[in-house]
């Protein structure tokens, strides 16, 4: 399993950098990973709103939320999400939120 | 010499028939498989565009008309025409088809010789100038089939190694046996062609030979004809060791694999067979497959969701 150094700590990730151990996630991880993902500076309140939303949904249902629902519940449209997370909702936002890669025909 | 030919010919024919039959029976006796049909399925009503009975709502309540004759003709057609080769590799086809026609015609020729000889024993006179119409007909039929066999066979056997070496893909997938086959078959057809052109233009010797076979009297023949006959007998014995059975198995594959769209209806004989097969034990060693279980048990009893 590949390891990834984020903020001085080592994490187990998959081949594409998705965190494998959900429970190891911390806000520092997300902040540290943001730099790797090419998001400049500190994560803003809007970033955290989305990350927290995703994590809460995941805690409740065991999967990432539908993008449509994510947009509706957070009030961000898809464009806005791409502004916040240039790699997009799945490869960007969910990754920072510590979720593993989406699977199945999605 | 004559005796040798008679014995060898009988052995050769019995051998090829037995080995081919064994191979075909073995093919057919393999258990029914999971459906793996591929469209167009020619017995289907909408075979032109490849449609199936699944195009109708509630297909199981509808009739499923099957045209078996159409399928049979369709599958046989390519034994004589090889359309995909014509479309996709014209040069190859140009030699491959004659090469195959050589097989078909040389065997047809010999079988016809048998009938001709039988008719001769019964009193028919087979010759160009025969007074009997049937005798005339037989004469020309034999001349045509024999002639085509020798010419196409020789042509094909000479051309095949050339295309095989000239085409990058074919060359890479060739085996030494391919080239041996071409050479051997060239000798078989070539000897026949020579004997016909230079020694026996009426192909009369073959009738003498077959009359000898039927009456079990060793025939008197020219050495070159004898050479061809011996080679032909060896050819018959050799054929079952090549992939030549594909002449028949390709049709079986069409009917029993590619076009096998028989649904497993409740209470059918097929369902019974399948249920039996599902009872067999499997020995796969992957972690997700339980040890010593049957198909049914493996599918039903394990891989269940975790208890919450």
């Amino acid at each position: 399993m590949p390891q990834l150094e984020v903020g001085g700590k080592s994490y187990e990730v998959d081949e594409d950098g998705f965190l494998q151990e959900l429970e190891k996630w911390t806000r520092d991880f997300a902040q540290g990973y943001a730099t790797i993902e090419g998001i400049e500076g500190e994560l803003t309140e809007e970033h955290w709103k989305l990350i927290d939303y995703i994590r809460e949904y995941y805690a409740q249902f065991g999967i990432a939320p539908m993008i449509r629902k994510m947009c509706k519940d957070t009030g961000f449209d898809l464009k806005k999400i791409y502004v916040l997370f240039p790699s997009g909702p799945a490869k960007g936002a969910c990754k920072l939120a510590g979720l593993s890669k989406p699977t199945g025909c999605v | 010499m004559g005796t040798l030919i008679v014995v060898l010919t009988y052995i050769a024919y019995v051998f090829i028939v037995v080995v081919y039959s064994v191979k075909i029976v073995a093919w057919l006796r393999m258990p029914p498989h999971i459906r793996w049909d591929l469209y167009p399925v020619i017995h289907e009503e909408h075979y032109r565009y490849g449609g199936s009975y699944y195009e109708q709502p509630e297909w199981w309540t509808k009739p499923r008309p099957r045209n078996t004759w159409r399928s049979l003709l369709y599958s046989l057609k390519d034994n004589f025409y090889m359309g995909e080769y014509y479309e996709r590799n014209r040069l190859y086809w140009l030699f491959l088809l004659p090469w195959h026609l050589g097989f078909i015609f040389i065997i047809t020729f010999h079988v016809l010789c048998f009938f001709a000889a039988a008719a001769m024993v019964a009193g028919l006179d087979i010759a160009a100038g025969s007074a009997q119409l049937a005798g005339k007909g037989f004469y020309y039929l034999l001349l045509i089939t024999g002639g085509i066999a020798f010419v196409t066979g020789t042509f094909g056997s000479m051309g095949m190694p050339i295309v095989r070496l000239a085409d990058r893909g074919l060359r890479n997938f060739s085996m030494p046996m391919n080239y041996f086959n071409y050479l051997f078959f060239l000798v078989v057809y070539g000897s026949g062609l020579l004997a016909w052109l230079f020694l026996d233009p009426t192909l009369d010797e073959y009738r003498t030979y077959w009359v000898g076979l039927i009456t079990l009297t060793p025939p008197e023949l020219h050495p070159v004809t004898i050479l061809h006959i011996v080679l032909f007998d060896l050819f018959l014995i050799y054929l079952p060791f090549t992939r030549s059975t594909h002449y028949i198995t390709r049709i079986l594959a069409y009917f029993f694999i590619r076009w096998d769209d028989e649904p497993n209806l409740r209470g059918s004989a097929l369902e019974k067979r399948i249920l039996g097969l599902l009872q067999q034990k499997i020995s796969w060693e992957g972690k997700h497959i339980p040890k010593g279980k049957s198909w049914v048990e493996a599918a039903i009893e394990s891989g269940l969701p975790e208890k919450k």
Partner: protein
Amino acid sequence: MKKTVHVAEFTRLGGQVTELDPAEFIALPPPYDKMEKPPIRTLTDDQRKRMDTTLDGIVAVGLQPPATPEEEKAFIEKFLAGLEKLFSVEDNWTFLQPLMHTLEYCVKCQICSDACPVYVSSGRQDIYRPTMRPELFRRIVSTYVKKEHPLLRKIKGSDIELNWQTLARLAELAYRCTLCRRCAQVCLLGCDNALVSREIRKVFSQQMGIAPKEIHEKGSVQQLRVGSSTGMTPAALKDILEFTEEEIEAKLGRKIKIPVDKKGAEILLIHNAGEFIAWPENLEAFVIILDAAGVDWTLSSEIAGYDSINYGVWYDDVQFARVAIRQSQAAKSLGVRKISFGECGHAHKAGIVIADRVVAGDLNIPRESSLPLLEEIVMSGRIKLDPSRNDFPVTLHDPCNMVRLMGIVEPQRRILKKICPQFREMTPHGVENYCCGGGSGFAITQSTNFPDWRNSVSGRMKMKQVLDAFQDAPGPEVKKYVCAPCSNCKGQFRDMLDYYGAWEKSSIYYGGLVELIVNAMVDLKQPFIQWEWH
């Protein structure tokens, strides 16, 4: 002159059998002939150490090299033991006859090569010939399973000396074929090289437990464990359906209750659960149509009852049987009269055709495609449609599983011809279609550089077909729609159109069939298709 790759090169230690050169790939029409980014990512040194990349530098399986010679030996022995099982009636009655036929009777004429989109798109790389895998496989069988005499092997050119590297390459190679079976269609001898790809995958999976993660561990295993390969539990399903109902209400102006676990319904609709998450408008459209047509239907919330997928059809007979049986059980417990499969190609072939000889007795509940039902609804006039609402160029992608593999060709066309004035066919289409490039699990295989390969090689022929179909309006001014009635194909189109920047360059969008039907419904105030979700 291209370098010829001989089978013997698969046994060479180290190095790559083939180096892919994008300049050799078949050309796409401009502006797609010039790609800004390197088409295929190279892997890091660290990744190359962990995973075998010695076939073509691409990773789908990514076997880890053995640490010791003993480990290597054990690996080879276990594989060979599995190989033997492929030829046993008990262990492989399921495909014994077609497998034996292909192994025995292929004459290696190479006629099938040019039918293969992967081979042709790649610029005719020998390793991707449909005949290459079976040839390598045949040699291993001849030498190690049949144990033919060395002299005979020489004559037949079937001698091979096996090492771990060869098997690692064989495993990868089995995942360079989309199982589209176009090669099998042109074979006059009735041979099926695609089947050999699948049988190789089976030995690796059923014997060694080796398969791409997305297909096995996160795929069929996860489906059997939680209910769906997406990880969607019944609770998550409920949440998603509630959201879907809200969306429908917003678009339609009235609420429709989505029936779940309705006992005794006429139809159990088994839909691909991936759609619920990624393309909810497809489910919405089904709901709207079935409701408007007054059909008595239901979804199921039982394990495997709400996810139509059956990945086993690509790599594993046992996993296949498990899912097929669960789906039938879900239908049986609801007491429905029949099962109808939503827009998903492999689920169609798996659930309707292949499962036919796996489920028996009272589990053998009639199963059908939803397309004929949709056709009946559209043609009957039960819903009011206005084709002028779909007045944009539309082309149809045929999922291999629906056309070549089960003969459902015309219903979808008759629908499109009725509701899309600018419908045009691709060439070729119907049973001679080309795979989207995402078949046999490729569309869901998302790790390392495999997606790059799938977009630039296995999907290339399809990309070309799509661009050709729209050549009358190539620019971005005209919005265009590729109708792909299959979740897997849609996944591939999403990735591929994005990879080539086809929205920015040409405004090409993709989606299912039912979306077009609902888009034409006069009941809707707003257009149903929302192009901004490209």
